């Protein structure tokens, strides 16, 4: 097993290097002069050239491109320094903290809600294949698959915020004005619409996936054996089929844990939710090279780790998987 994990990790190294090279190339193509963006606005015209050269040297931009790349990597891996945001004039790590917290709060709600709905629905769909229940959810899944998330978000805003006036339009609770229980209530009210939007959007894929995994499990020979032994249908489904269906489903659950960190740029933009996705849009529009590239890098590393984790979990719970 340890060998399996080590092999998986080793495979990741070229992938990570590839990602970093691509992102480095993209960062070099960003419009705008990073040196000028880093210079304080108060600088006097006569000192400008000298200050420009000093800043250029400080940022390491006077070195060769290859050297710059290694310096960048060194800073990230050894010193944990992601660079300095020219837009917010703070270290990148500080800029990401607060939005990341907001995104995690939002995604935690979504993930809990969606697992609670998707698992039972997917299983029931597979068990009652071809029934009204199955077809109904199939239609739902097909429909939500075809609806852009921003349209769903806009429609929910139109119905619940504007027409009915039950929920706030968009934005965030004001932590400085509210305290204690009021703040909590405000959080809940601001979260309802984005959570509902993203849950519906992500449900479509998940229930199909779970249904197919379950159908696969139900068509196996051991299910026929279990039935012919005279076991009750409940035992067959939950003990024999579901446990085996869990192997593919585990990928979803691992994915869910890692998706906590990935912001949804579109939904967060519609609801003006100060999450990581919206920060990315702001950073791109503000031509903040370091912030944009760092965020892309963080997202990528999270993705890579998620795939690795899914592989390991797979290997742990499925005895059939052997190292080739």
């Amino acid at each position, binding site marked *: 097993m340890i060998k399996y994990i080590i092999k998986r990790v080793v*495979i990741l190294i070229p992938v990570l290097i590839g990602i970093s090279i691509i992102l480095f190339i993209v960062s070099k193509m960003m*419009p705008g002069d990073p040196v000028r963006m880093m210079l304080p606005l108060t600088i006097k015209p006569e000192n400008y050239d000298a200050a420009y050269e000093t800043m250029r040297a400080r940022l390491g931009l006077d070195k060769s491109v290859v050297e710059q790349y290694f310096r960048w990597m060194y800073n990230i891996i050894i010193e944990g320094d992601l660079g300095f945001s020219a837009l917010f004039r703070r270290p990148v790590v500080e800029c990401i903290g607060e939005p990341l917290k907001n995104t995690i709060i939002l995604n935690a709600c979504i993930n809990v809600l969606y697992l609670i709905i998707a698992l039972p629905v997917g299983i029931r769909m597979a068990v009652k294949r071809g029934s009204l229940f199955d077809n109904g959810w199939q239609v739902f899944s097909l429909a939500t698959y075809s609806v*852009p998330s921003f349209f769903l978000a806009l429609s929910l805003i139109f119905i619940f915020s504007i027409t009915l006036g039950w929920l706030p339009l968009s934005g965030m609770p004001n932590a400085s004005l509210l305290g204690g229980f009021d703040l909590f209530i405000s959080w809940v009210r601001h979260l309802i619409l984005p959570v509902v939007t993203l849950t519906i959007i992500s449900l479509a894929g998940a229930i199909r996936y779970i249904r197919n995994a379950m159908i696969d499990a139900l068509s196996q020979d051991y299910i026929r054996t279990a039935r012919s032994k005279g076991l009750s249908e409940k035992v067959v489904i939950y003990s024999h089929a579901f446990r085996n269906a869990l192997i593919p489903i585990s990928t979803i659950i691992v994915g869910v844990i890692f998706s906590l960190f990935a912001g949804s740029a579109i939904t967060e*933009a519609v609801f003006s939710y100060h999450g990581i996705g919206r920060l990315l849009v702001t950073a791109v*529009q503000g031509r903040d090279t370091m912030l944009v590239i760092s965020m892309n890098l963080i997202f990528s590393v999270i993705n890579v780790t998620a795939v690795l984790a899914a592989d390991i979990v797979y290997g742990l719970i499925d005895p059939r998987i052997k190292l080739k």
Partner: protein
Amino acid sequence: MSNNDIKKTGKSFLSMFKRLFVRDKTEINVLEEEALRTPFKMVMSKLVRSKMALIGFFGFIAILLFSFVGSMIWPLDRTYTELTNMNLRPSRNFLRMPRSLNNKNVVKVVSGVSFSVALTDDGNLTMWGTECNIARESIADLIFDIPDAVKDAFIVDVEAGMRFIICKDKDGKFYGWGHSGHDQAKLPTDVKRIMDVRGSNIVKMEAGTLWSAALGHDGYLYVWGSRQAVNSFIVPGSLEGRIVDFAAGESNMALILDDGTLRVIGARGTEYFDNVPAELTDGSVQVAEVVSTSRNVLARDTNGHLYLWGSSIDGLLNMPEDLVPDKIIDIDAGYKNFVVVKDDGSVYIWGADDLKQLNVPQNLKGVTRVFADAFQFYAANDNGEIVGAWGNKGYIWGSDQFGRDIFTRIIHGGRISLTVGAVAVVISVTISIFIGLTSGFFGGWVDHGLMRLADIFDSIPFLPLAITLSYVIGFDMSESAKLYFIMLILGVLSWTGLARLIRAQLLLEREKDFVLAARALGIKQQGIMVRHILPNVFSYVIVSVTLSYAGMILTEAGLSFLGFGVKEPTPSWGNMLTSAEHSAVIAHYWWRWIIPALFVVAAALSINMLGDALREAMDPKSEER
């Protein structure tokens, strides 16, 4: 039975006829059916039986025809804007006069952007058209909310601004309502006081977009509304008290003085201001009448001669050549058009045709004057009956923030969105097939390297990278280059899934028994690949292409919605939705986001349905229950 026998029976015309219309089950035995039904035919027959596939197919064809044929029928001027007409709700009733006007003597008809008001000789106002305002405290009233005081009063004169109405009753009392963000619909108390002190009786009124103007019988001109307009329309002291008539454009006014000469006030440097014909100002002719569009002036002297000057846009300086300057009984001006009526009832109109202004009805009879104000034109006869109306009928799906017709933009946006999606799919599928086949065919380190490349592309999240690339590289691209670039981004970033699928299928099929059989028969490796393995892989490709086409359309919409996709003014369903981020748009201008979004949904849904049905049809397991 061999292939030849089947061909023979097929050759006979009668038997073909029989097979088409007479169902004879005994004729085809099992083996024949086996030989006749190719996998393609089987899939097709399953598809035709599937309701979902049919709905999806015909839905998609309908959208396709609507966009591609529609864009030939309704061409789009991409850079066109008409700001006066922004945010008008869907309707086609701008010209639909109520029947109650039929037997009445209409004295005057004035129009705003989406409504017209008729003043009848019994002192009543009749309104038709569509609401153009959103009621907001102290900024705007609904234009169709005619104040009760106006309904009770005997109205003798009325003028319509773009989104407001002013009128006065027979006692000289002034009324105004509608959009009044600059107080243009309300006579300010200081202006009222000056009028009262001087004892001016209003003899003529004009209303623009942000201002109103009134002329007193004593030759004084009063302007109120936006500060800019008031400052720009200051009448020089030497002209005060000498004005007998005036006509107003957007930023200039033409004044007729008591000595019959003409002066222009307002913004300097415009053709309106600079190009006044000399004979009108030096007193050599007497100006009888003057009318003005937003940027042009048409004046008539007492001898019936016409003088035309101003901006050259919209072809307003091109007076019809067959218009002989005598026997003219009426001249009037819309926002971008001049109308002239001759004594034989013929109507001449020239200027812009963006809103069908030149579309004069053929069968007009006995026209003695035409009421023109904005974009609607009403021809009236001697008895004050309206005999014809033409101009802007309305926008069937509303207009957007630049006054562009959403219907046309949806059609052309559909063309763009569907094309971007299709090209992106072609790019992505080409890369997928190439990499998938190479990887599966060669194996070894090539496979390993390509799969790591796929890992890299999979690991960088799609939307953030797409946004970044679209902004970084597409930053200073021209509109059309950006369009191609979006296709490229979508295609290049989304090949991994299908490439992996093709590779996996290739590896899977390679181990199957029929390949072994083919090999045992001595068929060449290439032949096995092309004739035996690829057809089995391609069914996956087709399903994947269909489903990813829907995905591409949605992604393009999302990217454009965030402002990183197709650049304005080229329309796409996505970028038509960009402005819907503002809550005011969501709340008040529903047609601006619901309509394009519904088209995205309809297109994606129909393609997804087709793709789903295709997958079912191609999967032999799907019929097992």
